[in-house]
């Protein structure tokens, strides 16, 4: 479903991605792990072109995302993204956060969009918080609203950029639970994370990245129990 070929990305002289190649299948949950500064987030952000890669190709269902004439706005509608810092719209209620894109971009009528949004907010356990502004929510609640907001566009893929890294420890669980449900429903997901337990339990495949290179990939069992690459071994010995 998602094919990445020889992806290179530099910020000025600093080369962050040094040729990434991978395939991600439909309904697959891929967890990307690795040390800070390894290029995990940049890799994820290149997929929906929040960062422009200098070289290489990304194809989604055969359509080239990286083509200069690609209709990036339409492609992004099919890719939900969840950010480390939530990035909810503070001037809108949770319901408006979720309905904004369907109403403005898909030209859905308000009632329909609100029905869908209420359903999604219920699904993430916030059915009673539709009329609340983000500033009144806890971190975990904000992130769940952000997930609902991304789902409202019916994306084919969900990209998670360290969704629990800025949460208080007791709120990590509620967000991971929502993500796990999503995975069980068959959503294609790419999750950049430091939650090794989640990667092991929910991930179908784990990518280990270091220094801008996809060092090793495999099933959670292969990566966590029998890592081949010495860098993977070194990293896991520190975090597990």
């Amino acid at each position: 479903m998602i094919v990445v070929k020889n992806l290179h990305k530099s910020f000025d002289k600093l080369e962050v991605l040094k040729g990434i190649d991978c395939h991600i299948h439909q309904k697959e949950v891929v967890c990307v792990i690795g040390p800070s500064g390894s290029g995990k987030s940049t890799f994820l952000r290149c997929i929906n072109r929040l960062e422009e890669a200098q070289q290489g190709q990304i194809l989604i269902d055969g359509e080239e995302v990286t083509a200069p004439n690609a209709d990036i706005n339409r492609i992004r509608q099919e890719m939900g993204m969840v950010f480390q810092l939530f990035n909810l719209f503070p001037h809108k209620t949770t319901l408006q956060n979720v309905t904004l894109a369907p109403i403005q971009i898909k030209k859905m009528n308000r009632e329909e969009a609100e029905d869908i949004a209420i359903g999604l907010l219920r699904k993430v356990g916030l059915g009673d918080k539709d009329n609340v502004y983000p500033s009144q929510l806890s971190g975990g609640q904000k992130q769940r609203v952000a997930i609902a907001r991304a789902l409202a566009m019916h994306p084919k893929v969900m990209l998670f950029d360290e969704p629990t890294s800025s949460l208080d420890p007791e709120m990590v669980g509620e967000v991971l639970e929502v993500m796990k449900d999503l995975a069980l429903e068959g959503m294609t997901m790419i999750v950049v994370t430091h939650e090794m337990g989640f990667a092991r339990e929910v991930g179908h495949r784990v990518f280990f990245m270091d220094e801008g290179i996809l060092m090793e990939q495999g099933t959670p069992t292969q990566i966590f129990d029998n890592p081949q690459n010495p860098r993977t071994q070194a990293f896991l010995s520190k975090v597990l």
Partner: protein
Amino acid sequence: MDFGFTNTEWFFGTMIMDKLNEIYGFQVVVNNLGNFTMGAVLTLEITLFSLFIGMIIGMIAALGRMSKVKIISFISVTYIDFFRGTPLFVQILLLYFGVIPLIFDATPVQAAIIACGLNSGAYVAEIVRAGIQAVDKGQMEAARSLGMTPTQSMRFIILPQAFKIVVPPLINEFVMLLKDTSLVSAISAHELTHTGKMLYASTYQAVWVWGAVCVFYFIMTKAISMLGDWTERRLAN
């Protein structure tokens, strides 16, 4: 020195004159309350029209300045630099006597509005740009990641948040602009300062005339800042 009268006469004469002046001076203000008010109203009109022009031009120039198209950002930056980098007084003279006559036959008030509007636009542009840039970068990313175009992201996400940020500096600009319109008295637009000049020239009552002008300006600026405080409180909720 011999003025043709004795010291005593001179002394009592000036005393009487001073007394008369005190009474008469006060009368200048009372008798001309209508003129002062008309001047103040015109000052307010020039300010409001200028601010309106300034807001529109400022918004365009702010977006232009941030544009990736080189020529657009160059024009915007040049405009902003010129109007912020030269005195408003000189701009008024240049536009009224130099540039505007080449285009059309403007009244002093029209020229005043154009000059103040262009000048204000440059300041508004910087206020708006600062406001937009103060909105967290993640907001634009979130909007774009949902598939919004840059224009939609600006309209629904960035500008509503920037608006809250720019209200206090815009009110400040409003107050500054109102005071700066006093400079257009130089091209005989009959606003408040010009009213003051005329009355001073005919009565020589500097304290009374200019004091009254100050009071009129102060009432207007105070009203604007109170309006600003009220708006800020409304927006905070």
